[in-house]
């Protein structure tokens, strides 16, 4: 049985054309994708309904302006979209969206999810200083060969979840040596199959090059272990003070975090506001106080709230103005938490978040 659509053209171009035809044939009413808005890496996520607007679409641009999971949740928070929409997202963005759907912050129905095997993205600053455009050809060369790119987000270099879970269509990028000539859309679901009916291209039988993906996985895993082990070991309060002491308390990391969805964050509320009298009493008690205070509490608190669902997209570190190694902490601690519950965030929509479910007989050793 045919399980893939083959288009004999440059991959990015074929997908762009594919999306255009989807709109023209009214199979979908909107397309959610990355779109160029200027030179030197100025791209942004957009919801597009006119097929002309898709000329500047760059669905696989190696940049994540915001985690799309968060954006999709904004669109579908109150219910599924009224019209069908095709969305092109990266695997971790899809996983973030699934985590949000589990938290009833988004809806899947009426969305056609198109994702790809992901080679990672560059930090946002490369888009503001324009260096990303220079790197693009190297990037795609490395993706073709199944190598890890240099200068990616640290989170991406150490990411082992580069194949999407639960996408209707997966575009084969990593290890596809003929990216410029051929494009393969792998159909994973019925929805995906419906979408490609009567489309340009040829239905063929194809799967991922499993060997290549395995090799790529091994490379990433090695990079991950290196990343976890080489970086400074965090051991105790003093290390935490060293790392978080420079936090300016902008809370940017929680603003971009796809899992942090609370409209009013507890840490922004008056509940945790330091009143002048509080400064005085704290100073009296401790003999000194960092101002703004409570930075470690904020980061550890956020860790306990979102760590279990952290997809490791690295947005938090990317926006941090003082370069706190948040990826290292959230990914490392998050994965250690997820391992206890054998949970991979965003892998399976029917699997409950570990903290809202339980088994009667488990972790009996914790009680004492």
């Amino acid at each position: 049985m045919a399980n893939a659509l083959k288009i004999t053209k440059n991959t990015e171009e074929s997908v762009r054309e594919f999306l255009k035809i989807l709109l023209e044939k009214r199979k979908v009413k909107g397309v959610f994708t990355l779109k160029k808005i200027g030179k030197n890496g100025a791209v942004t996520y957009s919801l597009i309904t006119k097929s002309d607007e898709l000329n500047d679409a760059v669905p696989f641009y190696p940049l994540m302006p915001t985690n799309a999971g968060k954006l999709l949740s904004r669109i579908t928070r109150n219910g599924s979209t009224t019209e069908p929409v095709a969305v092109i997202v990266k695997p971790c963005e899809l996983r973030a969206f699934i985590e949000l759907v589990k938290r009833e912050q988004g809806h899947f129905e009426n969305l056609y999810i198109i994702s790809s095997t992901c080679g990672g993205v560059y930090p946002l600053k490369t888009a503001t200083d324009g260096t990303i455009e220079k790197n693009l050809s190297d990037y795609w060369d490395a993706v073709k060969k199944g190598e890890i790119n240099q200068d990616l987000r640290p989170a991406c270099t150490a990411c082992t979840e580069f194949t999407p879970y639960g996408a209707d269509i997966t575009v084969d990028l990593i290890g596809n040596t003929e990216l410029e000539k051929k494009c393969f859309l792998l159909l994973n679901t019925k929805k995906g199959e419906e979408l490609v009916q009567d489309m340009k291209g040829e239905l063929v039988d194809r799967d991922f090059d499993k060997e290549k993906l395995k090799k790529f996985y091994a490379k990433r895993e090695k990079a991950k272990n290196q990343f976890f082990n080489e970086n400074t070991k965090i051991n105790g309060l003093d290390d935490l003070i060293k790392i978080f002491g420079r936090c300016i308390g902008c809370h940017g990391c929680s603003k971009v975090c796809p899992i942090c969805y609370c409209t009013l964050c507890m840490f922004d509320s008056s509940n945790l506001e330091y009143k002048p009298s509080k400064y005085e009493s704290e100073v009296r008690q401790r003999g000194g106080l960092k101002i703004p205070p409570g930075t470690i509490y904020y980061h550890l608190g956020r860790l306990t709230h979102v760590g279990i669902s952290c997809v490791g997209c690295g947005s938090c570190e990317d926006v941090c103005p003082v370069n706190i190694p948040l990826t290292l902490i959230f990914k490392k601690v998050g994965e250690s938490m997820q391992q206890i519950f054998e949970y991979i965030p965003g892998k399976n929509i029917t699997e409950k978040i570990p903290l809202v479910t339980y088994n009667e007989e488990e972790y009996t050793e914790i009680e004492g």
Partner: protein
Amino acid sequence: MKKDDIFLPKILTFLCNWCSYAGADLAGTSRLQYPASILPVRVMCSSRVDPLLILRAFLNGFDGVLVTGCHLGDCHYQEGNYYTRRRFVMLKKVFDSLGLESDRLRLSWVSAAEGQKYAKVATEFTQKIRELGENSSKNKIFL
């Protein structure tokens, strides 16, 4: 050495309204002796204890945090304490991964009839914290 002898830790204790608080009450009315290190906070259910509360106590210099609730299966709200358990496992993991002293946290099930157990847990935990010494976060100014 002398100072250690008289070190009386401060232990923040969350007591669930339906079992543990009554258990603590029973310990009192039965005139059981236990250290004065315990600072009780009554909550409606042990699952109301957000990890943030425990963290805050820890960073504000409490030497230990004890969370108590009904025995499993006896929760007034059917299943609250099962969630508490998972959350506690998670929080301990966070502490361990960052090299913080997770021994300063303890979870215990105390029913309304277990005044004895409550006094025992309080004594044991106080002893344990005494061995660990003061929580160093008390004097840290850069938190």
